[in-house]
């Protein structure tokens, strides 16, 4: 048992136990001593659900990192590859298998695909002539990993980039699968709300998958009342701003050296943008940052923030920034700038209209009087700025999205509502004063500040809603921008 997972309204230990059971079952399938060869990327997520002791109990004696050429010597009966379904990894595995010493004791090979088996990868293994070498080829549907009593993450680094830059829905498919697993354990979620293209797609996939599963009727009493699917690109602003909660700050400044003076100047610039001051001009703080060659990520984050807070920059301003960045940091960054434009973080203002003030006012994104000691509103997490994403969630629960139709239309992507009918026996009769439980899924990542804001809402006495948060990745502005950067050399 992991105590930190069971304190919330929804006992996430159930999920953890379910995935652990699945892992044990697989390990026991491969009888005898084993060595695990890890796709390095997976060790982090696995660490959260199974410690070495669990593996050891199931006769895992050695662990290696997946790399080319020959496998290290290990006196074990089974070699199990734990990998993501990626072609490049298949090539490495094939190399490992083919260079196996034929004279040594024969060892059984197995593959565990995380989170899904892939025909494509199996075809590659077949083409490389090693598919038959594997006795068990299974999948381990580790989609959502419990991090905390109210927090689940897929830890999929590239999810935002794949969805919004490369139009690759793989992680959305995994997200939908993860939600199906969750529903299998915690009951069908009766209502699904969503905003954004990706949200729409995930909801469609879920509805489709539900049809696929109609045979096994879910008879579990629903724990969640609602699911809210939110595209990260509905709210590009929030992650760009510096998080000012305790956890958020640690996340922000970890590994970054900053003088307090400069930190203050940066916050001032950010707050000006978010409150709508001079967002249409070249900002001298940004200019100075470039001139002093401050870290590029910091600069990009500020420029993007300005762009988002102005519904895009005037062409002249945008070109100026871009030129400055290319001259200072190198022309190779033209690729990165293009990526940022493609996902909408950086863009020329179209139609000469700045919608941000309308959004800011309607959603009350900027609060001038913030009480950081005894907060009364979520805006405390950014010292005045209320995260748009969380505001959307808050307004959904009360008074409902109908009140903000106009703003929803301005924000990108469709908004929608779907109902998943429940058999009468499973319909909930809410006790007076009993809070709803909403699962909010951030497609493309969530920040600690947003989590803090949602936790704040959960704790409000008259809030009426408690939140469980799921995401493709726990992120901050820096890691986010970095994932979109392209370094050709």
């Amino acid at each position: 048992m992991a105590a930190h997972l069971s304190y919330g309204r929804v006992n996430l230990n159930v999920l953890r136990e379910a995935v652990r059971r699945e892992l044990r079952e697989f390990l026991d399938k491969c009888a005898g001593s084993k060595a695990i060869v890890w796709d390095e990327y997976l060790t982090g997520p696995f660490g959260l659900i199974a410690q070495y002791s669990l593996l050891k109990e199931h006769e895992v004696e050695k662990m290696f990192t997946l790399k080319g050429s020959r496998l290290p010597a290990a006196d074990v009966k089974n070699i199990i590859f734990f990998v993501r379904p990626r072609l490049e990894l298949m090539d490495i595995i094939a190399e490992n298998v083919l260079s196996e010493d034929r004279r040594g004791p024969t060892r059984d090979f197995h593959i565990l695909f995380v989170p899904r088996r892939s025909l494509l990868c199996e075809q590659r293994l077949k083409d490389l002539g090693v598919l038959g070498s594997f006795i068990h080829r299974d999948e381990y549907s580790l989609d959502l990993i419990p991090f905390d009593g109210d927090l689940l993450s897929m830890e999929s680094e590239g999810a935002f980039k794949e969805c919004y830059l490369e139009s690759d829905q793989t992680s959305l498919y995994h997200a939908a699968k993860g939600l199906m697993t969750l529903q299998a354990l915690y009951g069908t979620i009766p209502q699904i709300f969503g905003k954004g293209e990706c949200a729409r797609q995930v909801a469609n996939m879920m509805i489709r998958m539900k049809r696929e599963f109609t045979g096994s009727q879910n008879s579990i009493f629903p724990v969640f009342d609602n699911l809210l699917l939110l595209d990260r690109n509905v709210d590009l602003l929030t992650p760009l701003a510096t998080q000012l909660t305790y956890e958020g700050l640690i996340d922000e400044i970890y590994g970054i050296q900053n003088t307090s003076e400069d930190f203050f100047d940066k916050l001032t610039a950010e707050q000006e943008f978010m409150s709508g001051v001079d967002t249409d001009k070249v900002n001298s703080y940004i200019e100075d940052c470039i001139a002093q060659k401050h870290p590029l990520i910091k600069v990009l984050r500020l420029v993007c923030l300005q762009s988002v807070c102005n519904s895009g920059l005037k062409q002249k301003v945008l070109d100026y920034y871009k030129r400055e960045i290319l001259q200072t940091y190198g022309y190779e960054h033209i690729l990165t700038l293009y990526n940022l434009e493609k996902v909408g973080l950086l863009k020329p203002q179209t139609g000469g209209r700045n919608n941000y003030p309308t959004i800011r006012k309607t959603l009350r994104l900027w609060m001038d009087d913030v009480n950081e000691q005894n907060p009364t509103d979520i805006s405390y997490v950014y010292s005045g700025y209320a995260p748009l994403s969380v505001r959307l969630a808050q307004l959904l629960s009360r008074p409902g999205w109908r009140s903000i139709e106009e703003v929803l239309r301005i924000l990108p992507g469709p908004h929608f509502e779907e109902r998943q009918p429940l058999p009468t026996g499973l319909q909930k009769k809410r006790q007076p004063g009993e809070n709803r439980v909403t699962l909010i899924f951030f497609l493309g990542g969530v920040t600690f500040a947003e989590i803090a804001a949602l936790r704040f809402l959960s704790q409000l006495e008259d809030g009426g809603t408690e939140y469980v948060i799921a995401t493709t990745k726990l992120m901050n502005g820096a890691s986010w921008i970095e994932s979109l950067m392209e370094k050709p050399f």
Partner: protein
Amino acid sequence: MDCYTANWNPLGDSAFYRKYELYSMDWDLKEELRDCLVAAAPYGGPIALLRNPWRKEKAASVRPVLEIYSASGLPLASLLWKSGPVVSLGWSAEEELLCVQEDGVVLVYGLHGDFRRHFSMGNEVLQNRVLDARIFHTEFGSGVAILTGAHRFTLSANVGDLKLRRMPEVPGLQSAPSCWTTLCQDRVAHILLAVGPDLYLLDHAACSAVTPPGLAPGVSSFLQMAVSFTYRHLALFTDTGYIWMGTASLKEKLCEFNCNIRAPPKQMVWCSRPRSKERAVVVAWERRLMVVGDAPESIQFVLDEDSYLVPELDGVRIFSHSTHEFLHEVPVASEEIFKIASMAPGALLLEAQKEYEKESQKADEYLREIQELGQLTQAVQQCIEAAGHEHRPDMQKSLLRAASFGKCFLDRFPPDSFVRMCQDLRVLNAIRDYHIGIPLTYSQYKQLTIQVLLDRLVLRRLYPLAIQICEYLRLPEVQGVSRILAHWACYKVQQKDVSDEDVARAINQKLGDTPGVSYSDIAARAYGCGRTELAIKLLEYEPRSGEQVPLLLKMKRSKLALSKAIESGDTDLVFTVLLHLKNELNRGDFFMTLRNQPMALSLYRQFCKHQELETLKDLYNQDDNHQELGSFHIRASYAAEERIEGRVAALQSAADAFYKAKNEFAAKATEDQMRLLRLQRRLEDELGGHFVDLSLHDTVTTLVLGGHSKRAEQLARDFRIPDKRLWWLKLTALADLEDWEELEKFSKSKKSPIGYLPFVEICMKQHNKYEAKKYASRVGPEQKVKALLLVGDVAQAADVAIEHRNEAELTLVLSHCTGATDAATADKIQRARAQAQKK
């Protein structure tokens, strides 16, 4: 109840046997049974008849007819036999009819006479012909044993997984054995055969002579042998009219009987049931039927007609031209209740209930009697159990009524057994109906299980009944209704006279979204029947893309497969189809297909990015995606080329593409980059050091640091570096060099576009307060206080702040007032503040 036991016949002291009618047969048999090869499947299964023209010398010009009937005599199939001479017929456990031909080929037919497949029992059999054959059942499935013309045995223990085994030779065997049978011991099939007075057991390794213990002397030949339904017992009929009964292992004798009839019987079968009191054998001659066991007397029946015996788990079925009967040992519960003058609790309860219905007080007396003995629970159980063994619904009802009556007087009698028996009997009565014709007994039904029974109903295409049973028993849909509907659909797709549309619609109407129905399985069946279009229509209803796609690919509908894969959102599936398409189509068509599927296109682009860069370029070219082409060339300029000229050429391509994409900015920037690259090359040649791939900013900085101010200036001008940034650049570089003199000169070259505070800051950063102070004086009024504080001149900072009357500045200065030295300054500020407030 006297009349009820009228058909009970005692065998010895312990057991009764009864024979009752299952059906009166009105099958229109054209042949006498004795002229036919007959096979009746156990568990109330179908009956197959094939007039045997090959046995007689008659010309075989007339082709015989193979007929299949239900156990109640309803015709299921009738077909003209066009293949070779048949030696033996038999039913498999799946109710498939196996017809063993003389040449060793076994033809397999379905219940409805539909040909399924055929297989051969091997070359040796083909050469020596089949003399005799048996179909037998084991826990692994159904087997075939063959006796060839060379008096050798070949067998396969499971026709589903055909492995032929040739049995060892019997030494000195010159003629066919007088009788033989298959045995199954320790999960292996053996053959027991009789030659003259000797018995031999063949296993796969050896032939051994065996002797039954306690066999009466004087036997010179065995005429008949019978092995029981469960392979546990064996009976031998000798030419002396003597019957030996014992275990099939031939280790133990159970009993023996002398019937004094020397004529070889037509059939001999075991008649017992699980937990029988008596082990009995039924022997049939032309007109006589005899039940013999461990008793001095036998039970005898006269056969009016040519009859055929079918051994069952718990008795023997006997059918003839006009009737179909069941002969069995009366089960214990029935015996207890119905035996004349029985005082068993069940018997009393049945009486009590009857009296109760007559409103007689005797009911109470009986009931009291049972209760006093504390046997009411037992009585109820007996009645329930006995009801199960009754064939007639009126008897079932009266026993169940008695049970229900007795239950009322019991506090906590668990209702399950009663409810379940009512349900089971309802199912049994339904399937025993002569329209259905499956005369299962309760014990057989339990042994068979409801799942198998449903399968058999499905085999008979009795879909509605099967579904009603599922619904009645509330079986989970996946095991019950869905499975049956799926079977129905698979049957439906084979109806070739119905159009694809109609079949698809009919199937969807019935199946809808019934859970657990696999439309792809049905579609696969349709495809198997050559109905591709129907298969595609059916796949439309399949919600699981993972199932749709592989079948579509198999049917070569790759484009449809692609759109299905895309719909599913499963990218792996999309990739699979894409790679399939790539091999199937020529490049042009493949690209066109991609073009119409944006999602697939982006996935394929990602694939190419990692696996096939050249294809990626072609894809962009095809779509006139000049922006991406530009980026492609930019990447290429870094990737392979080492030489500057190669890189410049790639960048030129990029710039051209950007122009085509109307991205002027990117084009210009790329041209700038080319210019810079050439220049850097030249700088390396002229000045040495490393320049290539430095940013413009860093190139200028390097020049300044290297003392090439002129060149730096020139470069800045050429690339139009904004003044502000250039000042920052030079300031930073000169401070790094600690070239204070040059810095001062630079500061005075013209009015600083960035003010002088940065000068103060940078000097302080280098810990040069002396230099910093020089610039502090030149800092403009807005930043003056900040500058003064930086160089540590708190007093002057205070003065300026007071002069500015700026509250924020005052607070700032105050916060810098530390210790005693600044006490006076702090005072001064406080006073100024106080004064300001007065005004």
